C-alpha cells in the first residue's frame, strides 16, 4: 500500500545571525489506517514538523508528498483531505460553536446542511451538543479541546494531524478521546499523526512511534520494542529482614539498585528475576511486598531525554 504521507529529508533551518537547525533531514511514511506517534523532548522538532506538514511553516529542503502529490504545489487540494487539531490553538472566542464550525465547513466547500449533518453526531459524542449556541469564551478549556477535535473530524479527512490533543483533558475524557480516535481509524481507515507527552496514551494508540531529538529521528519502531530496547524491568521489594544481604547479592550480580528506608528497587533483565529471588530465599531474606514493573515507553523517553 502506498503511503498517504511521505516525508523525505525534510529540514528546517531558521535564518538570522545564528542559524538554527530545528529539523534536520527527517524521512518517514504514514501508511493508510496507521496511527503514528511523533514523540520527543521539548524542542526536539515535533511542532515544527507538524507545522511544515500543514504548510504554516515553509521548509528549507526536502519534500512532503500527500497521496503521491507534492504538498506545496497542490496545497489547497491536499488540505481538503487533511485536518488538524491542537490544544495550543483556539477559535474565535466571540463566535459560537455553531458559527465557528460553519465557517470551517465552508473552507472545506461544505454546505450549511452538510455541516450540520456532519457536526451534530460529533458534538453529541463529545457531550457539547447543548453548548452549540454558546460562544467559545463561555467554554472550559476541556470543551474547547473537544471542539477542536470535532473541527478536525467533521470534514471527513483522510489524514489527521493532532498536536497533544488530550493535554488539557481530565483522565476519563482523555481516555474517551483515545477510544474515539481508534473508532474513527477502524471505521473510516484514516491515518493519524499524533504528538503527546502522555506515554501510556501513545502505547495504547500508536501502531508505530518516531522519536525525535534535536530535529533528527533517533528511533522509528513499534512502541513496545522501543520500550524494551533501553529499559530493564524494575523490581521493588519491601525487605522485612536481610536488607544488607540483599544489597550484597545485588552487588555480586552487578545490578543497579536504590534503597529507600526498608525498600530496595533494582533494575534487571526479565530473565534474571527468578534467579535473583531464589538467591534471596537461599540467603534467608524475607520481604513483605514485591512489585515488578515492565519497561515502558516513558522509560525510553526519559532515557533519550537525559542523554546529551
Amino acid at each position, binding site marked *: 500500500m502506498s503511503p498517504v504521507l511521505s516525508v523525505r529529508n525534510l529540514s528546517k533551518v531558521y535564518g538570522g545571525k545564528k542559524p538554527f537547525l530545528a529539523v534536520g533531514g527527517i524521512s518517514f511514511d504514514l501508511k493508510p489506517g496507521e496511527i503514528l506517534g511523533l514523540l520527543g523532548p521539548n524542542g526536539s522538532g515535533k511542532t515544527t514538523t507538524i507545522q511544515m506538514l*500543514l504548510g504554516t511553516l*515553509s521548509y528549507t529542503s526536502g519534500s512532503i508528498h500527500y497521496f503521491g502529490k507534492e504538498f506545496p504545489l497542490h496545497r489547497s487540494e491536499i488540505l481538503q483531505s487533511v485536518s488538524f487539531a491542537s490544544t495550543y490553538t483556539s477559535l474565535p472566542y466571540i463566535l459560537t460553536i455553531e458559527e465557528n464550525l460553519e465557517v470551517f465547513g*465552508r473552507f472545506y466547500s461544505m454546505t450549511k446542511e452538510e455541516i450540520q449533518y456532519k457536526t451534530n453526531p460529533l458534538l453529541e459524542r463529545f457531550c457539547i451538543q447543548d453548548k452549540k449556541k454558546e460562544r467559545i469564551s463561555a467554554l472550559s478549556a476541556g470543551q474547547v479541546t473537544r471542539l477542536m477535535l470535532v473541527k478536525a473530524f467533521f470534514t471527513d479527512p483522510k489524514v489527521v494531524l493532532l498536536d497533544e490533543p488530550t493535554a488539557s483533558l481530565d483522565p476519563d475524557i482523555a481516555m474517551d478521546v483515545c477510544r474515539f480516535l481508534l473508532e474513527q481509524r477502524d471505521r473510516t481507515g484514516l491515518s493519524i499523526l499524533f504528538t503527546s507527552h502522555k506515554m501510556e496514551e501513545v502505547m495504547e494508540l500508536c501502531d508505530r512511534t518516531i522519536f525525535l531529538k534535536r530535529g533528527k529521528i533517533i528511533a522509528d519502531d513499534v512502541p513496545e520494542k522501543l520500550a524494551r530496547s533501553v529499559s530493564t524491568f524494575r523490581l521493588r521489594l519491601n525487605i522485612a529482614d536481610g536488607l544488607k544481604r540483599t544489597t550484597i547479592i545485588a552487588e555480586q550480580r552487578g545490578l543497579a539498585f536504590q534503597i529507600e528506608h526498608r525498600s530496595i528497587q533494582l533494575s534487571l533483565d526479565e530473565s534474571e528475576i527468578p534467579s535473583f529471588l531464589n538467591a534471596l530465599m537461599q540467603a534467608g531474606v524475607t520481604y513483605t511486598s514485591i512489585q515488578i514493573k515492565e519497561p515502558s515507553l516513558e522509560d525510553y523517553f526519559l532515557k533519550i531525554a537525559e542523554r546529551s
Partner: protein
Amino acid sequence: MNFRRIKGVFFRYYFVLKKGPQQLSDLFYWPLIDILLWGLTSVWIQTQSNASNFPLLLMTGLIFWQITWRGSVDVSISLLNEFWHRNLLNLFSTPLKLSEWAAGVILLCLCKLVITVLFGTLAVYILYSLNIFQIGWAFLPFAASLLIFGWTLGFLSSSAIIYWGHQIEALAWMIGFLFAPFSAVFYPVSILPAWAQAIAWCLPTTYIFEGMRHILSNGTFPMQDFLISIALNILYLFLSIALFRTMFEKSRSKGLARLE
C-alpha cells in the same frame, strides 16, 4: 478561487460584526461623531466667512475619506482579528488560499461600506440638509477609486503586520492618517508646500478630492483626473497585493504560529 471558501471568510467576519455594539460602532458611531464635529465646525465657519458651499465641501470630503479609511482598516483589522483570536494557524491549515481570504475580506468590506456611506449620507441630510449625492453619478466611480486605494493601504499595512506581528498593529489605524494630509481631503492641493504637492500628485486620492471640488464648484466631471486616479490605483493595488503575498511567504518561512 472557490466561492464557498470566499463565503466562509465573509461569514467569519460577518459573525463577528453582528455580535454587538463594539463591532457596530465602526459602522455608525464613529462616522456620526465625525459628521457632528466637522459639520458643526463648518456651519460655524460658514456663518463667519459667508462661504456658501463650504459645509458641503467639507462634508463630502469627510464622507469620501471614510470610504478610503474603511477600506484600509477593514483589511488590516480582519488580519489582526486572526492574531487576537489565535486563529491564524487554524485558518491557513485549511484549503483556504490567501487570495480567497483577501476576496472574502473585500466582499465584507464592500457591504460594510455601503451601510456606512448610506448612514453617513442620511445623517448629513437630516442634520444639515446637505445632499452628498449632489455631485451626481460621479459619486460611484469616485467612491470605487477611493475604496481601491483604501484596500491598497490595507494590504500595505497588512504586509508589515503579517511579518512583524502584534508589535506594529497600530499601523492598521495609522496608515490612513499618514496619507490623509497629502490627499487634500479638506483643502486644495495648492495650499500644500511644493514638496508635499509632489507627493500629493502621486496619490490617486488627490485626483479624486480635487475632482470632487471641481464638480461641486463648476458642475463638470474631471475625466482626466479620474482616469489618472484609476491608473494609479490599479498600479498601487497590484503592488500592494504582491507585497502582501511576498511578506506572507516570508512570514511563513519563520512560521505563522509565532504570530499567535
